């Protein structure tokens, strides 16, 4: 079986490359939108006196996570069709990835902003920073490591989920897996699985570097000690 897999991989580099790129594309777009939405909503629900809204939003996105991905794809099709939008292909896949990636990003943004030392915020306020200045000059830079951790979580999770998006015709590394299941070809299943894993590890490593790169230097020094 391993030999078959190796043979298949060796003879299908073109296809695997194409599918991996497709996979990455869906992930990049889905999580790109997920970050913007997640961080924005995270900021919006983190203000003072918004604890109850935050609870509701976090609860809803937790429920979202519990919907099996197959069911979500199935639900998205009639909804999108009803809205006269393409019900198969990239669009439903990306919507699903945004939805699944939302919770980790949202929760970590909310937690990260909430965990900023109140003394920092008071120092900012006491020196005459407006709420917006406190957010952008103090809270967000300090919350970067926590938000990034959430993003990494979301992406690794979504790399797995994107493999299922093949059922709605979004392509990606799910293609060999599902083809293998249908035709009883373990070598195809393994090929897909191996490359999904490689992709997940590679992307996570890359994001680890990005995290190091965008975490403010002073915060890094503080953590190392």
């Amino acid at each position, binding site marked *: 079986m391993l030999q078959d897999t190796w043979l298949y991989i060796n003879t299908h580099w073109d296809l695997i490359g194409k599918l991996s790129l497709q996979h990455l594309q869906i992930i990049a777009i889905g999580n790109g939108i997920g970050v913007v939405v997640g961080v924005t909503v995270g900021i919006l629900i983190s203000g003072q006196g918004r604890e109850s809204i935050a609870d509701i939003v976090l609860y809803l996105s937790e429920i979202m996570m519990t919907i099996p991905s197959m069911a979500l794809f199935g639900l998205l099709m009639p909804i999108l069709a009803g809205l006269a939008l393409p019900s198969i292909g990239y669009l439903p896949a990306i919507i699903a990835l945004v939805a699944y990636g939302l919770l980790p990003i949202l929760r970590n943004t909310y937690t990260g902003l909430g965990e900023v030392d109140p003394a920092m915020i008071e120092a900012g306020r006491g020196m005459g920073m407006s709420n917006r200045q406190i957010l952008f000059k103090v809270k967000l830079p300090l919350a970067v490591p926590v938000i990034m951790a959430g993003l990494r979580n979301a992406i690794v999770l979504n790399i797995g989920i994107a493999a299922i998006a093949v059922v709605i015709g979004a392509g990606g590394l799910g293609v060999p897996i599902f083809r293998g299941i249908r035709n009883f070809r373990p070598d195809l299943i393994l090929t897909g699985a191996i490359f999904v894993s490689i992709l997940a590890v590679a992307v996570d490593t890359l994001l680890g570097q990005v995290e190091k790169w965008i975490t403010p230097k*002073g915060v890094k020094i503080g953590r190392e000690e």
Partner: protein
Amino acid sequence: MIKLENVTKIYPDGTRAVNNLSLEINKGEICVLLGPSGCGKTTTMKMINRLIPITSGKIYINGEDNTKIDENELRRNIGYAIQQIGLFPHMTVEQNIMTVPVLKGWPENKRKKRAKELLELVGLDPAIYSNKYPAELSGGQMQRVGVARALGADPEILLMDEPFGAIDPITRGRLQDEFLKIQEEIKKTIVFVTHDLNEAMKMGDKIALLKDGRLVQYDTPANLLYKPKNDFVRNFVGADRALQGLRLLKVKEVMSTSPPVVKVNDDLAVAKKRIEEEKIPWLMVVDNENRFLGWINKPDLATCRQGEKVEKVVIPPTTTAFPETFLNEALSLMLSSAIGNLAIVDNKGRLKGVLTFDILREVIGKSYVGERSK
């Protein structure tokens, strides 16, 4: 400069944190808000820059009602140094100091110049520290940067909430001294919150002692010690009142200005004669320019031979003090010196006088209060 008029703060839960408090703080003075925890001192301070909204009453800054000023504008014009230092860990020392100048939109070269000046003022070399991050500094250095940051845009008023709180006693003492020196230069109007009586005595031109949100006594440190208004004040300043009193006097106010002296090139016979005349077991030795060289102990004279010079038996001083030294510091210097007496010299080393235990005993006994000349 700052005037509080019937200021009251009632929190939403009904706590009356500050109760009908009126206080006037003069320009260039350090006013210490002192009291046990929960007395309303921090609340009072934070109402000045409106971090805490006032319930009733008025606070005037330079005659202007502070609720009529835009709150961010108000805060940018009042320096603020807080308890846990509150330096931004993601910003360099320079960026931290430039926080308010940036908010005020100063041009970059002016900001950088100011940051450099301030680092020099607080005794940190800009070449070394400008680009360091708070995590790379010691506690004392962070406090210094905290003070520099509060002075960022050269505000007339400074609010300091236990700025030297989270630091070891030795460093704290040094920072307090340095800050007083800086204050002599910059003459800011300062509201300083502390629960530490010693710190209040040292830093305050005036002390406002608070209890349960009410002002109990607003007075100079000396009056708080020696003219306590009631038992609460008496108990608060405590039983070590006499020792506290030492903190209010400088050496020059009590030292003996005619100490028994011999010249270093005198014959020992002269020294022997002086000791017998003065009926004391020691002498002080100076050179021809009256510079202090050390002590002579009576027992050391017993074995000397004829014709020998004072030089032979002089014991160099372990420590000396300046006329401006406060008596509490002088006392600890005396305790650590072998002779037990303290030579007082000027900055060129010339002998100005001597401080002995007898003098101190007399001072403590009389609980003598001089005019505070800080």
